């Protein structure tokens, strides 16, 4: 039996920013492996380099040194267009939701599908299914401004799931919503992982949230300092 390639793998990943004239080592050689069906929490205080790591894994930024493999593909070998195609297979969920304000909940989900060239009827159907999955069937014609924080994050999750991504990449998904709603959102995320087998990577500074994951990676000063398996 041939082992499936890890969904995400990093090899000695380093990133150095130049702030003014001072070089800042945001990542100092990170080795990480995420298998299919995994639910990983990357935990660390601000400045630990976890957001930088997210940008690398999400193919939003390029490393200074080392490599990122997504589905076995070396990201550094891809050009702009190929990177764009790759990002369609990553479901981003941001702390500040990052929905397009002028589009309705359904419109936001449909936008992702239209970027992937899906036809009008097909994407409407898919968007409605997804919004139903995240429990927003009744609110899909509302614009983000008319939705609560929790609802917005559900829209963002529905959007992230739209193109059947290889994994969900969540950046502080509950950082901007109250604790009760946060619990609900995490319940949804866990369900997606358990029932639908969606691979999930969550980045957070919230210890409580991290304990929901199957696996925790603790980061400090640009390095992984501890890995905890919670299974």
């Amino acid at each position, binding site marked *: 039996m041939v082992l499936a390639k890890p969904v995400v793998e990093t090899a000695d990943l380093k990133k150095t920013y130049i702030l003014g004239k001072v070089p800042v080592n945001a990542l100092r050689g990170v080795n990480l492996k995420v298998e299919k069906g995994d639910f990983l929490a990357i935990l660390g205080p601000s400045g630990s380099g976890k957001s930088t790591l997210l940008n690398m894994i999400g193919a939003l930024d390029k490393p200074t040194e080392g490599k990122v493999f997504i589905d076995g593909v070396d990201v550094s070998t891809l050009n702009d267009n190929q990177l*764009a195609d790759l990002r369609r297979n990553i479901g981003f969920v941001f702390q500040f939701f990052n929905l397009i304000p002028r589009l309705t909940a359904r419109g936001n989900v449909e936008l992702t599908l239209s*970027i992937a060239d899906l036809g009008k009827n097909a994407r409407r159907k898919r968007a409605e299914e997804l919004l139903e999955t995240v429990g927003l069937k009744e609110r899909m014609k509302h614009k983000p401004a008319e939705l609560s924080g929790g609802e917005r994050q559900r829209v963002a999750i529905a959007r992230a799931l739209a193109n059947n991504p290889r994994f969900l990449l969540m950046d502080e998904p509950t950082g901007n919503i109250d604790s009760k709603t946060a619990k609900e959102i995490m319940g949804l995320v866990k369900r997606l992982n358990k029932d639908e087998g969606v691979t999930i990577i969550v980045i957070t500074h919230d210890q409580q949230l991290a304990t929901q994951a199957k696996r925790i990676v603790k980061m400090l000063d640009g390095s992984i300092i501890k890995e905890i398996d919670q299974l």
Partner: protein
Amino acid sequence: MKVGDVFSYAFGAIRLRKLRAGLTTLGVVIGIAAIVALLAISQGLQVTITDQLKSGFATDTLIVSPGSGGGIFSGMGGGIGGASSDFSLVVTDTQIINEIEDVVTSAAIIQEIGYIKSGDRTVTAYVVGVDFAVYSEIYGSTFVAESGEIVPNPDNDTVVVGKRVSDRWENGTLVCNVDDAVEIIWTNTTVRPPRNETYTVTVVAVLKEIGGLSLTGPSDFAVYIPLGQAQSLFGTDECDRIIVKLANEDSSTIEAVSEAIEDAFSGQVSVTSSTAILNTISSIFSTIELFLAGIAAISLLVAGVGIMNIMIVSLMERTREIGILKALGMKSRTVLAIFISEAVIVGLMGAIFGIGLGWVLANVAARVFTGGGFAAATGQRATSGGFVINPVLTPTVMLGAFGFGIAVSIIFAIYPAWRASKLKPVDALRYE
């Protein structure tokens, strides 16, 4: 992303900022309207002038006037152009011209400015001496009597008058009519001091209305006297011009005869064809139109700068949106296409409304120019010295304005759109 989706996304973005988009579009509207209005008016004017000229024209005629290079203007003014030369055309020169191949006939014209006095009414008129028989042969369609009769060999004291000499004010109050006795007054400048000469004639015919400017042919404002009478009256055999009728109006004939005539008079005459005059006028208008369109185009360029300015502002406001789109997997060229599409929509709307507004402006301006003003507004015929300008909007101008409007919008959008497409997703997402 499909083209339709790109446009609908772009349209949504424009709709979000209606006032801003409206003002940007207004810039394009003004630019296009200026181009369309100016061109429609100048082309209308060209049509009017050409028509006016054509109504007195016969395309199978040449005008021979003394002096080289004086052309039509020497003929018009009674020899202004030829004044610098000692050479002058004389009445008998028609015999030389008549012998040239393809010349059917020719008529010498002696012309003075004078007055017609009938009772207590006096009006100015050109006093033109011509051979009635030859002149009616050349201008068979315009030198035609409306009342009375033009006889080939008239008595010396008979005259044929133009329509406007008889019915000067176009209201039925006639200065003179057939069988009336009138006095012709002209100023004799061959004696010192110059004095007015008067002689009495009988009107035998009134010409039917010719209309137009009558640059070369029969005029509504002329009194025609027999050529022999003009020679003895004005005491000269010199004529102002000779009108030549050709066998046909082919350009080769026109050219060959023109050359032959110039040769016959050793290059001391200038020969102008009616077609050449029309061509000259049309080329003058082309230049004017180009000039006007150029001025109007500047306003469109200003609108283009407006588009660019607004798009750069919009680019900054939408940096985060661009980051989101890229994180969702949108390609750079799609981001470019969205921004270009927004400009295309602005350009398209601007062009459509601009052409409409330009057409309205052209019509309003045409009415003001023709002096009709209120008369036009109340549905009456607007006339001012016989001019009625009807603005012309040719498909070329319309399509040109349309294309130019959209092209300018796109060109000025390229830079902001390119900048938008080059944004790095990680920077764009971090942008506050």
